[in-house]
């Protein structure tokens, strides 16, 4: 008894566990802790020590710069929040941007913050200091200097930077026997070769689509991914504005082996193997008087040719023909001849890029030199030949034999693994440089942020190679332009070009060319067996962007595939071989065999296998490794885009192909959701319109929208399907990436999706961007138990994230399926792969909430922009002006397909658009009264064809 009393109370365990006192203490402690967690954690405010001039906390700044794609520039304006870039937009003053962006420009901001970016110099994978490399480089360059640079080779991509060219010229003068090789996987070799044959000198063709009424594209893809997509898209749609009469509406004929964006936007499209497209070109030329043999063409192609030529000849001075990179140089020369006969409205300019030797020849010569052991010093500047060189050049094996090899790039990639040294390259958003676009316009590239890691720029490395101990890209770029600016005040000029983002008077002048010569071109035999055609991918391009999660998850335009590529087959071929979607086949060419999943594409030519480049990488980073299969290995240096005699055999395995859209024709109901009208019959035919005139009867009084009434009109005829709006929305609104597994479960997160509808299997589809409809009678609003989905006075349907409990009733009630649910913390705690790294969070837009797990989200009409514009207007005691608020998708769209504005403002564009005959509401018969409405797509069919079909 005495012992028990003496025992101390508290956590002394009795034979049965805690005693009552201990339990009560724990309970009280727990309760106190629980209460303590209700109070706010302390927060700090950390101001500047000295605030930078011009910076106001809370107000973002915009800077003009330029971003490269395949070496050519697109001018951009980058929004900088407190010293870091968060959003990329177009530069209205730049001719290759015209105020819009493409997917690659929008996604560049994410690759700046990629955690997989190379951060340190590596010597055979061991990190070392720059000084170490600098010392070794100096020694090596001294050795080269002794032999006049005969063992020195430089390999780059396409270089258009005047400063880099100046530095390269200086370097090659200092090392006279050194060579500079260029290899850009997506290059213009065939085009320049054709121009050489026709004119004796290389020229670049810039079609003037505003003056063109009939265009024939032979395996060409001007609307496809590339540095000219924005400009071509804008001009293309500009030439097809609906108010023009059918005579003024550009009629677009496309002959191509497999679906591209250009074919998807055509009026008349013919699926034809590339060999027969050559014969088609010959047939056209023959009709115009050329002394050539036309060769065989199937009946359908024959008819197509007749129609096209008839149309081309009927519009002298307003018709043109263009050929694509997959066609041989002779076809390009033939097109030059045809255009001269037609007096086509095209501008020919001297190329900005070095045209001779071609990229393929340049790489081949380098490979030969390396194999012959003539190369002692190989410096690879921002190129990845181990991955993207054609498979029949064994670059990987060759590189191993070079004694001193250096790779200078953004990632520690496949080529870096084969080189002795790897140097980290600064991202364009953190470097000083300059660039030129395809038409020659030069811009200064200015950094938006101090380099995140210990990187250098290409300018600095070239300066080191030239013997400089240290170099500043800023000084080097200024030096270039000081020499070019005639006298006067350089500083004022410099500030001017930095503000504008464009250097005036740098566009190439039209080239004076002689009359084109007709090339000798024999017609092709119809192909036997399978022909593999390759194309740059609409999201990966040539593989440069494979570690960019936004682009991996951005659905490809026509197939809506994500996170991988596929071997596309025509329906007939698939039926013949007994293949269905997802069956894995083995493609073989020579010794090379690769496995690829099959995707059946109605409308593809028979005998054609189409796949895209940019996949199958093995050393790009956590996002891109092992995604898809590598088609580069099947490429041949002599024929990189068309490979004949490819074998295909079923393996019996299956692989899931991830797509975000699973139905393209909707059992024939696609025409209800997506009417495609014929411009000839626009006036006479009353299109099926789904106007909700009054809608179902209601007892509720009409809501008086007498303040701003935000609405959006999307012209599906102008949408070319480029996906710029999808990625722009993702960048602006902190929309997370969910990864392939979640996509496989149907949980894609894009607020704005683009639906592809085929009204028939072979006619060109249409693209319908679907943001939130912001219905006036929204079905998602009455069903939310906590009023997280509500309406505001200006017509927006709001989603209040902090109220949402995740019932998901709103998502199931939405007839348009535009709502997205955070099944996991995709942006907060359960990010895909390495996207949870702190550096990735720098990209977030501070004006938009980052949603937690269990919360519903959807398009908000960029409510943060509306709010910002309203506050600005109200500070100035006025209303918001027409055009002051633009949504992210509207800004990004190259063709200006999206119009947004206040319906209650009589000056607003949306009112005019809503009055058009083509105007319709999506699923309007449901009575939702959507604020987002559409204009139907138009096709300008050749009247001869329509009569036949009728």
């Amino acid at each position, binding site marked *: 008894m005495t012992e028990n009393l003496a025992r101390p109370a508290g956590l002394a365990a009795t034979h049965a566990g805690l005693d009552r006192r201990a339990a009560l203490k724990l309970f009280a402690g727990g309760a106190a802790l629980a*209460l303590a967690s*209700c*109070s*706010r954690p*302390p*927060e*700090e*405010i*950390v*101001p*500047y*020590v*000295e*605030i930078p001039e011009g910076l*106001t*906390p*809370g*107000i973002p700044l915009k800077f003009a710069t330029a971003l490269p794609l395949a070496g050519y520039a697109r001018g951009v304006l980058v929004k900088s929040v407190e010293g870091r870039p968060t959003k990329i937009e177009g530069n209205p003053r730049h001719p290759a941007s015209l105020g819009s962006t493409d997917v690659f420009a929008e996604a560049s901001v994410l690759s700046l913050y990629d955690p997989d970016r190379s951060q340190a110099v590596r010597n055979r994978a061991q990190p070392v200091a720059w000084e170490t490399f600098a010392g070794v480089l100096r020694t090596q360059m001294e050795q080269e200097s002794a032999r006049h640079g005969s063992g020195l080779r430089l390999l780059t991509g396409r270089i258009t930077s005047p400063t880099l060219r100046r530095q390269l010229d200086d370097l090659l003068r200092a090392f006279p026997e050194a060579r500079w090789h260029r290899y850009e996987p997506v290059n213009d070799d065939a085009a320049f070769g054709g121009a050489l044959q026709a004119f004796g000198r290389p020229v670049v063709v810039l079609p003037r689509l505003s003056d063109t009424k009939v265009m024939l594209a032979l395996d060409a893809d001007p609307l496809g991914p590339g540095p000219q997509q924005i400009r071509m898209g804008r001009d293309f749609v500009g030439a097809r504005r609906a108010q023009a009469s059918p005579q003024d509406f550009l009629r677009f004929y496309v002959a191509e082996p497999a679906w591209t964006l250009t074919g998807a936007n055509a009026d008349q499209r013919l699926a034809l193997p590339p060999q027969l497209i050559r014969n088609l070109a010959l047939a056209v030329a023959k009709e115009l008087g050329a002394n050539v043999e036309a060769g065989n063409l199937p009946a359908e192609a024959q008819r197509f040719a007749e129609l096209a030529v008839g149309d081309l000849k009927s519009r002298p001075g307003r018709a043109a023909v263009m050929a694509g990179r997959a066609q041989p140089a002779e076809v390009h020369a033939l097109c030059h001849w045809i255009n001269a006969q037609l007096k086509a409205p095209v501008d020919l300019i001297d190329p900005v890029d070095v045209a001779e030797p071609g990229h393929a020849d340049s790489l081949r010569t380098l490979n030969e030199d390396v194999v012959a052991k003539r190369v002692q010093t190989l410096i690879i500047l921002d190129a990845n030949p181990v991955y993207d060189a054609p498979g029949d050049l064994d670059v990987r094996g060759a590189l191993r034999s070079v004694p001193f090899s250096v790779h200078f790039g953004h990632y520690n990639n496949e080529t870096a693994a084969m080189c002795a040294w790897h140097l980290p390259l600064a991202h364009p958003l953190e470097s000083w440089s300059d660039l030129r676009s395809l038409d020659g316009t030069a811009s200064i590239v200015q950094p938006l942020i101090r380099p995140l890691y210990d990187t250098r720029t290409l300018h600095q490395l070239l300066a080191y190679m030239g013997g400089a101990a240290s170099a500043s890209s800023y000084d080097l770029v200024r030096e270039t332009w000081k020499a070019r600016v005639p006298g006067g005040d350089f500083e004022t000029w410099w500030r001017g070009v930095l503000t504008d983002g464009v250097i005036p008077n740098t566009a190439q002048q039209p080239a004076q060319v002689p009359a084109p010569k007709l090339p000798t071109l024999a017609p092709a035999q119809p192909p036997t067996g399978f022909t593999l055609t390759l194309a740059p991918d609409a999201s990966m391009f040539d593989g440069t962007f494979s570690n960019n999660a936004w682009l991996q998850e951005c659905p490809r335009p026509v197939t809506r595939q994500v996170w991988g590529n596929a071997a596309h087959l025509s329906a007939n071929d698939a039926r013949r071989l007994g293949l269905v979607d997802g069956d894995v086949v083995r493609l073989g060419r020579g010794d090379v065999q690769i496995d690829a999943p099959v995707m059946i594409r109605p409308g593809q030519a028979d005998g054609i296998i189409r796949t895209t480049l940019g996949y199958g990488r093995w050393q790009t980073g956590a996002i891109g490794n092992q995604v898809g299969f590598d088609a580069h290995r099947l490429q041949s240096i002599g024929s990189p885009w068309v490979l004949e005699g490819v074998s295909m055999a079923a393996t019996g395995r299956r692989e899931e192909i991830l797509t975000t859209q699973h139905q393209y024709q909707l059992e024939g109901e696609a025409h209800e959701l997506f009417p495609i009208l014929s411009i000839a019959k626009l006036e006479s035919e009353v299109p099926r319109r789904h106007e909700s005139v009054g809608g179902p009867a209601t007892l509720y009084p009409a809501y008086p929208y007498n*303040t701003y009434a935000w609405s959006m009109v999307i012209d599906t005829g102008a949408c070319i399907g480029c996906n710029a709006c999808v990625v722009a929305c993702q960048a602006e609104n902190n929309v997370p990436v969910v990864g392939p597994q979640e996509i496989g479960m149907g949980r894609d997160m894009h607020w704005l999706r683009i639906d592809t509808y085929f009204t028939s299997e072979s006619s060109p589809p249409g693209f319908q961007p679907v943001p939130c409809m912001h219905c006036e009678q929204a079905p998602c609003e009455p069903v939310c138990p906590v009023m997280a989905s*509500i309406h*505001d*006075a*200006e017509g*927006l349907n*709001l989603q*209040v*994230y*902090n109220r949402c409990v995740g019932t998901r009733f709103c998502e199931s009630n939405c007839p348009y399926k535009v709502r997205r649910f955070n099944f996991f913390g995709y942006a907060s705690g359960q990010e895909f792969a390495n996207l949870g790294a702190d550096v990735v969070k720098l990209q977030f837009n501070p*004006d*938009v*909430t980052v949603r937690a797990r269990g919360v519903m989200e959807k398009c*908000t009409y960029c*409510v*943060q922009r509306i*709010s910002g514009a309203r*506050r600005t207007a*109200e*500070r100035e*005691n006025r209303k918001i002006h027409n055009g002051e608020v633009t949504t992210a998708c509207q800004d990004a769209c190259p063709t200006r397909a999206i119009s947004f504005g206040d319906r209650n403002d009589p000056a607003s564009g949306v009112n005019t658009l809503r009055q058009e005959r083509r105007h319709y509401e999506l699923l309007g018969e449901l009575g939702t009264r959507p604020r987002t409405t559409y204009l139907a797509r138009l096709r300008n069919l050749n009247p001869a064809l329509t009569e036949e079909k009728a």
Partner: protein
Amino acid sequence: MPQIFGPAANSVARVVLLSILITPFLAIALGYALMRSQYVTGASITRDQPVPFSHEHHVTGLGLDCRYCHSSVERSAVAGVPPTETCMTCHSQLYTQAEMLEPVRTSLAENRPIHWQRVNVLPNYVYFDHSIHIAKGVGCTTCHGPVGSMPLMRQAQSLTMGWCLNCHRDPVPYLRERSAVFDPEWKPPAQQEEDGKKRLIAYLIDNKHLTDCSTCHR
């Protein structure tokens, strides 16, 4: 067999039944009161700062305008806390050796910012914009309290959503003329109701949109 229920069992049963009815209401009331208490809202809690900056001295004593330090309040959503160089505009000449200002001098010398403890904090899902409130005639002291009499900064109001809505639903009692927005001594005069109604119209304040969720939550 021994009795299972003693004589007290009846009382226990009655107490338990009563508490089943009452306890949930008490718990909710406790929670309700707790969430409005100073403990949770942070009102009237003075936080320790690296430098004991006295608004009373600088505002009432010296007559500094709010905007001298919180300079972005008329243009930006963020009023902000001034950079060290703002403090040094005066303190490079006054109290240059004061021990109290040692952290400020060190901050400038070592180029490292001062870590102030945030007093007026709104949750991250609230997007508050200072400049629009200033533009519409809501004064600094209306929300931040009598700053001119605070020797150390504290959060004067509860800053709960209900408190914000109190004004958003009816701004009339709080609207000042624009010249009085930065007056630390302003009190609503007798005719505030009348004046406020006039300002509601003159300042183009849209009552309808003020209570839309999208005003603050996006």
